[in-house]
């Protein structure tokens, strides 16, 4: 293996700047003459705005301007959009209510944007915001997911019963038939708790307008700057696409929350032209809690049918998905096409039927958060499978293995065709590494110390490599989900790769360079990865859904192939051989069967000086682009085993052991891949044990800071044992499946299965906080006493 090539744990190129404090995040940028924006946000979850009086506030020191929804309307700025159309069972399109960047007549959640104050300093902007007089007519708030459709008030006029869509997938009749002949049916009711993504860097936006050229620039914390530009221009209409430059520099984590196009960046670009000054906004953490798109928030009832042999024959699921007060950019796709198609899990289930009711509430919009739909699906499948195994008195590992898919390709009843995998291999390896056979011993040892030990499995699958454009287009996506790359070879032989992917922690500057180094034989230090600037990089779709390896790197691989093909032509001329006789290997173009060769850098130089061929024979230069559209989703899968020890006196759950065995296909950089797994598990454990978003009955967000929203700390987590199995993905040229979301998808079910195993009953909800676990353990103690 090349020391910097595919499969090598290359240390990250980007780290030099990060460990020395030289990273450049949006808030680190300052533009001459810049003013500061502060958003006056709604203190009410649901209210009509009767009037907004900004006169006194405009007279405050330092105020440049104060803008409201009226000003937006006057400038004909459109509303924020949802880019995925979902149709209900009856064929009607989803009910999308208006989503203005600044409220127009009504506010729909606490934190909704009422007005923006632009001032010389942030403190002055805040001072002035307090002087804006808003007259609200407070309305009843719709808060609860489960009862939203029964509420007496409507969040949007277009959805009188707060239903966005009643969607379904699968064959109802076949599923009902399976249940009719079932020998055993397991049922479960689950709440998938609402989460706040919380990348450590809060969102920020800095808009700038150049009067002379009529050009706009937006620095923004985005996972997909081109999509941001497209939406801001084509749909919202703040600037023509070719006049708007969007820069997403170093971005401090995203986890989905920075995919979306929000009100704040819209306003910063628009306001920059109005006030003729750069306008900067940086979110504080409380604003992030209030107004970043949240994740999850499902209420689900599921039923699993089994035959007399313990073979699963049917799954029926009904889910209510809370979409919040407005449909965020990709919100509608998350509880539908990113959710139900994964309900077959790793199991051969002949019949599946799923209904999803998307509902509006007076809470922050809900959209994709690490895993997006797939963690929710895995939680349903792996909780109910575990429960079924227990009810049947079967070992949960054996029960899973009994039902695993073993033949590929495998088409599920919920539209997915799994291309490859070896689920038995992952489970066997995981059982070994988790020392499953001695679990009983450990449980007894814990019991001697007054502790409850439990073990939980999660055999997850996800669909990544999002996504074949034609397929998602037929399902309602407003965009294609291919990726682009341009490989520019310089005359000196160094290489710049312009990628449509965006790195915000994933380490693309290293892994993408590894691919180039591996394929072209160029030293990794001579490779630069360029991303995150629409003026530099061709249109691309960005990073989310574990797609940058499978889709983004495949585009680079395609462009590299074209570079090699062109290089062969150049080398043929220089080496005076037929193009068909030129081979490329180890960074050299060689005439087959001879020792005549031209190294890569010399070939690049020859391509640019163009002395050895005429313009009629060959174009000078060495630069190639490619767009890669995947032919299928990819299907990373694996087994996570969690072992917990509960202190029944306090309800504290300690994660004692974590074993992960994942199949991500071909791995470019195992160090980075393992890091992704660690981070994903931590977020999944956070969901299972610590993180719960709480709105009170009036729609006030109770968990609006780290004082109440519990983030995982180092002390809350163990070291993780991470192992791999590999079945190369046949659907892309590199064999990559993707790894970014696996941990977050697998973990919650593993934790809750372990806790319910320890407690001996199923009655626990996420997050399983000490209070919740203590109460559940009490119930257990009472039950035992009664017996």
């Amino acid at each position, binding site marked *: 293996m090349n020391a910097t090539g595919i499969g090598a744990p290359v*240390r*990250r190129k*980007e*780290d*030099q*700047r*990060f*460990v*020395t*404090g*030289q*990273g*450049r*995040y949006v*808030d*680190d940028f300052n533009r001459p003459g810049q003013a500061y924006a502060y958003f006056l946000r709604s203190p009410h979850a649901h209210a009509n705005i009767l009037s907004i009086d900004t006169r006194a506030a405009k007279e405050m020191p330092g105020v440049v301007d104060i803008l409201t929804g009226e000003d937006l309307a006057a400038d004909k700025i459109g509303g924020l959009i949802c880019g995925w159309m979902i149709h209900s069972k009856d064929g009607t399109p989803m009910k999308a209510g208006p989503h203005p960047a600044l409220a127009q007549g009504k506010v729909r959640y606490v934190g909704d944007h009422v007005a923006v104050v632009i001032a010389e300093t942030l*403190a002055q902007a805040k001072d002035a915001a307090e002087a804006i007089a808003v007259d609200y007519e407070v309305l009843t708030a719709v808060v609860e997911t489960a009862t939203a459709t029964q509420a007496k008030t409507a969040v949007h006029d277009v959805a009188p019963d707060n239903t966005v869509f009643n969607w379904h997938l699968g064959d109802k009749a076949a599923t009902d038939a399976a249940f009719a002949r079932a020998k055993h049916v397991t049922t479960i009711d689950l709440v998938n708790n609402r989460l706040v993504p*919380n*990348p*450590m*860097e*809060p969102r920020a936006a800095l808009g700038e307008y150049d009067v002379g050229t009529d050009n706009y620039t937006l620095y923004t914390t985005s996972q997909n700057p081109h999509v941001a530009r497209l939406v801001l221009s084509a749909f919202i209409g703040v600037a023509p696409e070719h006049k708007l430059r969007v820069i997403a520099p*170093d*971005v*401090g*984590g995203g*986890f989905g929350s920075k995919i979306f196009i929000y009100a704040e960046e819209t306003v910063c670009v628009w306001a920059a032209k109005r006030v003729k000054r750069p306008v900067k906004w940086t979110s*504080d*953490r*409380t604003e992030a809690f209030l107004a970043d798109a949240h994740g999850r928030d499902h209420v689900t009832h599921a039923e699993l049918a089994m035959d007399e042999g313990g073979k699963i024959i049917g799954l029926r699921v009904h889910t209510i998905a809370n979409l919040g007060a407005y449909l965020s950019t990709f919100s509608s796709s998350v509880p539908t096409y990113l959710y139900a198609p994964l309900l077959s899990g790793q199991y051969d289930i002949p019949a599946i039927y799923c209904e999803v009711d998307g509902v509006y509430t007076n809470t922050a919009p809900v959209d994709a958060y690490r895993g997006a739909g797939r963690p929710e699906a895995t939680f349903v499948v792996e909780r109910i499978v575990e429960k079924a195994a227990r009810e049947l008195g079967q070992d949960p590992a054996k029960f899973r293995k009994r039902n695993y898919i073993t033949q590929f390709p495998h088409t599920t009843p919920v539209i997915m065709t799994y291309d490859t995998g070896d689920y038995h291999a992952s489970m066997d390896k995981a059982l070994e590494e988790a020392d499953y056979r001695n679990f009983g011993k450990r449980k007894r040892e814990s019991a001697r110390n007054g502790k409850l030990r439990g073990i939980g499995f999660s055999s997850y699958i996800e669909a990544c490599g999002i996504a074949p454009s034609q397929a998602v287009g037929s399902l309602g996506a407003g965009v294609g989900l291919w990726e682009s790359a341009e490989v520019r070879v310089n005359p000196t032989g160094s290489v710049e790769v312009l990628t449509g992917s965006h790195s*915000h*922690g*994933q*380490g693309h500057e290293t892994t993408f360079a590894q691919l180039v180094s591996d394929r072209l034989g160029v030293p990794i230090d001579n490779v630069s990865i360029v991303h995150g600037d629409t003026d530099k990089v061709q249109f691309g779709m960005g990073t989310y859904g574990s797609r940058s390896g499978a889709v983004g790197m495949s585009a680079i691989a395609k462009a590299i192939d074209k570079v090699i093909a062109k290089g062969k032509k150049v080398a043929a001329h220089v080496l005076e051989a037929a193009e068909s006789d030129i081979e490329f290997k180890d960074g050299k173009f060689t005439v087959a069967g001879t020792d005549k060769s031209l190294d890569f850098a010399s070939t690049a130089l020859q391509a640019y000086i163009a002395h050895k061929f005429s313009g009629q024979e060959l174009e000078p230069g060495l630069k190639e682009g490619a767009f890669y559209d995947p032919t299928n989703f990819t299907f990373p899968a694996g087994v996570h085993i969690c072992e917990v020890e509960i202190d029944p006196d306090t309800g504290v759950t300690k994660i004692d052991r974590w074993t992960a065995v994942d199949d991500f296909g071909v791995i470019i950089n195992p*160090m*980075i891949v*393992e*890091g992704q797994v*660690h*981070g*994903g*598990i*931590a*977020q999944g454990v956070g969901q299972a044990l610590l993180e719960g978003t709480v709105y009170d009955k009036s729609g006030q967000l109770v968990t609006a*800071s*780290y*004082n109440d929203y519990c*983030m*995982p*700390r*180092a*002390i809350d*987590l163990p*070291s*993780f044992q991470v192992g791999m199995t590999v079945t190369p993905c046949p659907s892309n040229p590199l064999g990559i499946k993707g790894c970014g979301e696996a*941990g977050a998808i697998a973990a919650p079910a593993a934790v809750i299965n372990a806790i319910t195993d320890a407690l001996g009953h199923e009655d626990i909800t996420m997050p399983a906080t000490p209070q919740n676990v203590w109460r559940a353990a009490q119930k257990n103690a009472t039950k035992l006493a009664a017996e």
Partner: protein
Amino acid sequence: MAAVSLTVNGKSVTADIDPRTLLVQFLRENLRLTGTHVGCDTSQCGACVVHLNGEAVKACTVLAVQADASVVTTIEGLSQGGELHPMQAAFREHHGLQCGYCTPGMIMAAVDMVNRKGGALDEQTIRAELEGNLCRCTGYHNIVKAVAAGAEAMTQEPVREAAE
């Protein structure tokens, strides 16, 4: 306005500032030392950790005027002579960072941890001592490894420690 005069990364700095300026704002906005970050409003995340007179503090919860006559070291001042500080090198070597946003605070906290607790740090000690630093990317696994390795490296290089 209030006058402050302090030493930041070895350089004397004097300024006339609004008393409500936080130390982190002073570093980021007045001195353009943007390596020190802000990740929360409630003194919890630790992205803003710097050393004040050799001790780790949260620069979001110290007024710049309170740091008058003090010596401040930020992430930008940690490395000497163009070489990475052993803790910085350890974070890179052990993949103790992903997005990099919490990293400056993590590294400053880790160096402080070693200054207080020495170079032989076990996993539980490191995890407990990271109480005041949040990371959303790494699951802490590699941060713990990096701190342990960095601690060992720091104590093998007494000269550096003295310089810090």
